[in-house]
C-alpha cells in the first residue's frame, strides 16, 4: 500500500494521464447511456405514460401512432371482440403551435376519447382536463397555465383552437417532440385548423381495456385473431416495438461493447508496461524478502485507485450534464446505470491487470544476484 501510493505520487503525470483517459471513457459511456435512455423516452415516453393497457393499430400503421389510421370497419371489428370492456379513440398528429404568444414551435397532440383510455395514467402536477380546450403537457416542455395556440393553415388571423395546460406529466414525449394530451373534441378542432381540407378525423389507434378475468396479452391475441388488419399491442409492447427503438438500442449496445473493451485494455497495457519497466526494482524487492503477494497487492491497489479515480472523474464530468436539457432530450442521472458501469469497469480493470500480476508472480529473486531482473 505504502509502495503503491509512493510510486503514484512520484509519477503523477504518468498515472494522471491514465486516470484522465479512464475518466474520459467513463464520461463517454455514462453520457451515451443517458442519451440512449433519453432518446428512447423522448421517442415513446408518451406511450409508456398513457393509461390504456392495450392499443390497437392498423397493420398499415407499422406500429407508429402517426402512421396508423383506424377506419370505421376495423373499429367495429375491434369493439366486437369478446373481452373488450371499454374502447376509445386515440389520435396523434404534430402541429405548429405558439406557446404563450411566443415563436412558432412544434407540438405533438395526442387526442383521447375517454379518460382512462389514452390520457396520462398519472400526473406529476396540476389536474386533469375538464373541457376540450384544457390539456396535460409533457413536464419538460410546458408549465401549468401555459396557453398553446395551434397555428392554422392559410392566412394569418384564421381561427384556431387555443389550449390551456392544466396538468403536467413527466417523461411523456412522443417523437422527441413536446407533447400535449387533449380531449378528442379539441384534437379534432386542431386537425381541422391545420388542414381545412380534412373531411373526417379518424383515430390513429383504438385504446382498449379488457374485461375482468381477461389479461392484456389475451385481449391482444383475440383482437389480432379477429382481423388481419388489426395490430394490437400491450402498452409495453407498443413502446418497445415502435420502429427505431430496437435499432437505437442495438447501435448503442455495440458502442458500449467497444468502449467497455477499451477501458480494461488501456489499463492492462499501462500496468503491463510499468511492470516491465520496474522489473529490476521488483526483483530486488523480492531478493530482500518482499513477498510476491505484497507486490501483487500493491499493483492491484494502484489499479483500483486508477480505475476508481477515473470513475470519479467520469461521474464528476457527467453529473453537471444531467442538469441541462440536450435539445429535446432529457439527460438523466441514473444511479443504477452509474453503479452498474462503475462496478463493471472496476472489475474489468482489475481483471486486465492480471497479466501484469502474473509477471510479478513469475519474478525469480535469484535474478538479482546474477544481474538479471528482466521479465
Amino acid at each position, binding site marked *: 500500500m505504502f509502495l503503491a501510493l509512493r510510486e503514484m505520487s512520484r509519477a503523477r503525470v*504518468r498515472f494522471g*494521464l491514465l486516470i*484522465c*483517459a479512464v475518466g*474520459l*471513457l467513463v*464520461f*463517454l459511456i455514462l*453520457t451515451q447511456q443517458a442519451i440512449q435512455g433519453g432518446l428512447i423516452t423522448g421517442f415513446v415516453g408518451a406511450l409508456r405514460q398513457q393509461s390504456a393497457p392495450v392499443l390497437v393499430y392498423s*397493420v*398499415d*400503421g*407499422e406500429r407508429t401512432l402517426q402512421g396508423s*389510421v383506424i*377506419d370505421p370497419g*376495423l373499429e367495429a371489428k375491434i369493439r366486437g371482440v369478446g373481452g373488450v370492456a371499454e374502447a376509445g379513440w386515440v389520435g396523434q398528429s*404534430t*402541429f*405548429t403551435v405558439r406557446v404563450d404568444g411566443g415563436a*412558432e*414551435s*412544434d407540438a405533438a397532440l395526442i387526442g383521447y376519447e375517454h379518460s382512462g383510455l389514452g390520457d396520462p395514467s398519472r400526473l406529476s402536477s396540476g389536474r386533469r382536463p375538464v373541457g376540450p380546450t384544457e390539456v396535460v403537457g409533457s413536464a419538460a416542455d410546458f408549465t401549468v397555465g401555459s396557453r398553446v395556440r395551434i*397555428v*392554422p*393553415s*392559410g392566412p*394569418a388571423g384564421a381561427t384556431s383552437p387555443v389550449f390551456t395546460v392544466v396538468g403536467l406529466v413527466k417523461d411523456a414525449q412522443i*417523437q*422527441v417532440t413536446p407533447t400535449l394530451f387533449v380531449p378528442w373534441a379539441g384534437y379534432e378542432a386542431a386537425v381541422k385548423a*391545420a*388542414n381545412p*381540407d*380534412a*373531411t*373526417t*378525423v*379518424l383515430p390513429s389507434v383504438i385504446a382498449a381495456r379488457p374485461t375482468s378475468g381477461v389479461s392484456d396479452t389475451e385481449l391482444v391475441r383475440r383482437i389480432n385473431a379477429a382481423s*388481419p388488419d388489426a*395490430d394490437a399491442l400491450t402498452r409495453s409492447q407498443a413502446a418497445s416495438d415502435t*420502429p*427505431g427503438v430496437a*435499432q437505437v438500442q*442495438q*447501435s448503442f449496445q*455495440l*458502442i458500449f461493447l*467497444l468502449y467497455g473493451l*477499451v477501458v480494461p*485494455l*488501456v489499463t*492492462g*497495457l499501462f500496468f*503491463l*508496461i*510499468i511492470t*516491465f*519497466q520496474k522489473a529490476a526494482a521488483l526483483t530486488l524487492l523480492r531478493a530482500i524478502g518482499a513477498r510476491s503477494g505484497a507486490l501483487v497487492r500493491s499493483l492491484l491497489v494502484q489499479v483500483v485507485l486508477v480505475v476508481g479515480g477515473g470513475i470519479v472523474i467520469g461521474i464528476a464530468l457527467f453529473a453537471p450534464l444531467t442538469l441541462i436539457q*440536450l*435539445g*429535446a432530450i432529457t439527460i438523466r442521472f441514473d444511479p443504477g446505470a452509474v453503479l452498474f458501469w462503475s462496478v463493471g469497469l472496476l472489475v474489468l480493470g482489475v481483471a486486465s491487470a492480471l497479466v501484469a500480476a502474473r509477471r510479478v508472480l513469475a519474478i525469480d529473486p535469484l535474478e538479482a544476484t546474477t544481474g538479471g531482473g528482466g521479465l
Partner: protein
Amino acid sequence: MTLALREMRRRPGRFAVATIILTLIAILLMFLGGLLDGLVASSTGAFRAQRADVLVYSGNSRNSLERSRIEPDVRHQVESVPGVTRVGGLGSVQLGGRVPGRGARDLVPTVLFGYELAPRGLPSTPPAAGMVYANDSLRAKNVEVGSTIRLGPARSAVTVVGFVSDTRYSGQGTLWGSLETWRQVLNANRPDARVRPGVVQALVVQGVSLGSAGLPERIDRATDGATKTLTITQAVNALPGVSQQRSVFNQIIGVTVVIAIVVVALFFALLTIERTALYGVLKAIGASSRTLFAGVVFQAVVVALIASLIGIVASLTLNALIPAGTIPFVATPARLLSSAAVLVVAAVVGCTFSLRRVLRVDPAAAIGGTP
C-alpha cells in the same frame, strides 16, 4: 527511421497492445461515423436527390413537408418571382405497402412522393398515374419491376416501372410517381391529410440569384411570408433529427479522438521512459534529438496506420454483415479514410508529448558523465 522500423520488426509484441487499443478506437471512430452517415443518408436521400436550388414550404409549416400546404395562388406568386425559371410541386405520404409474396401482416414501410420536376435518377416526365419508380433499397423487400404494391388501408395499387438510388426518406424506402398518383393515394388513405386539386406540400424551384437578395428571400418577400424558402442544404439540415444527430455524434467522435490522443501519449511516454538509456547512447554517438523523435513519430504513425487498416477491414466486414433494416450503418470511403487520417493525426499529436523527454536525454549520462 530505419532504427524505429527495425525495433518494430524485432519486438512487435511491445507495440501489439497499443495497436489493439488503437484498432478498437479506430473501429469505434469508423462505426460512430458510419452510423451517423447511415442515419443521415436514410433520412435525407429524397431531398439530396432534388435537382433544384430551393424548396418552398408554407410559412407556418416549421419546414415540415408533412405539415406544409402550398395553395395554387401561392404557387402562381412563386412562379412570377424574377429569376425563377422552373417550379414543380412535391408531395409525400408515408404508408405501409403490401408487396406480393409477403405475409398479410408483413408490410413494407414506404414513402410515396409525387413530383413534377424530376429528382436525380428519374425521367424528366413523371410516370403515368398509378406507376412509380422505387428506391433500390426496396429490392431487399421483394419489390421488382412490374410489382404491384398496395399502399395503406385503402390498398391503393401502384406498379413499379423502375428503380432509383439513394432517395430514402425518414429511414424508409421511397416510391416516386406523379402528383396525381400521390393525391389519389393520399386522399384515399389519409382523410385527415387530404388535399384539393392543385394543392401540394412544397415547391421545388430552379432559378438564379439576381442582385443582392437571394432567391429564397425574393420568393418569401413575393408571397408576403406565406412561404418559407430553404436551399436544399438548409432543407436537408431542417429535417427532424438530422442536425441533432450530427451534433451529438460529432461530439462523441471528438471525445473519442481525445481518448486516442491520450492513449498514444501514454504509450509513447512509457516507451520513451523505457528507452531513455538507449537514447542517451544514441545521442552520445551522434544521433540528434530530431532523428530520435522522428523515429517515435514514425512508430506512432505506423501503429495508427495498422490500426486504421484493421479498422477499415472490420468496418467493411460489419457493413457487409449487418442485415438490411437493422442498424443504419454505412461504410463510405470518405468516412473510412477521414477516420484513418484523424487517427494518424491523433497519434502524431499524442506522441509529441514525449518530445520533451527525448530532448531532455543527456548523452553524458550514457558514458557516466552525470551522477
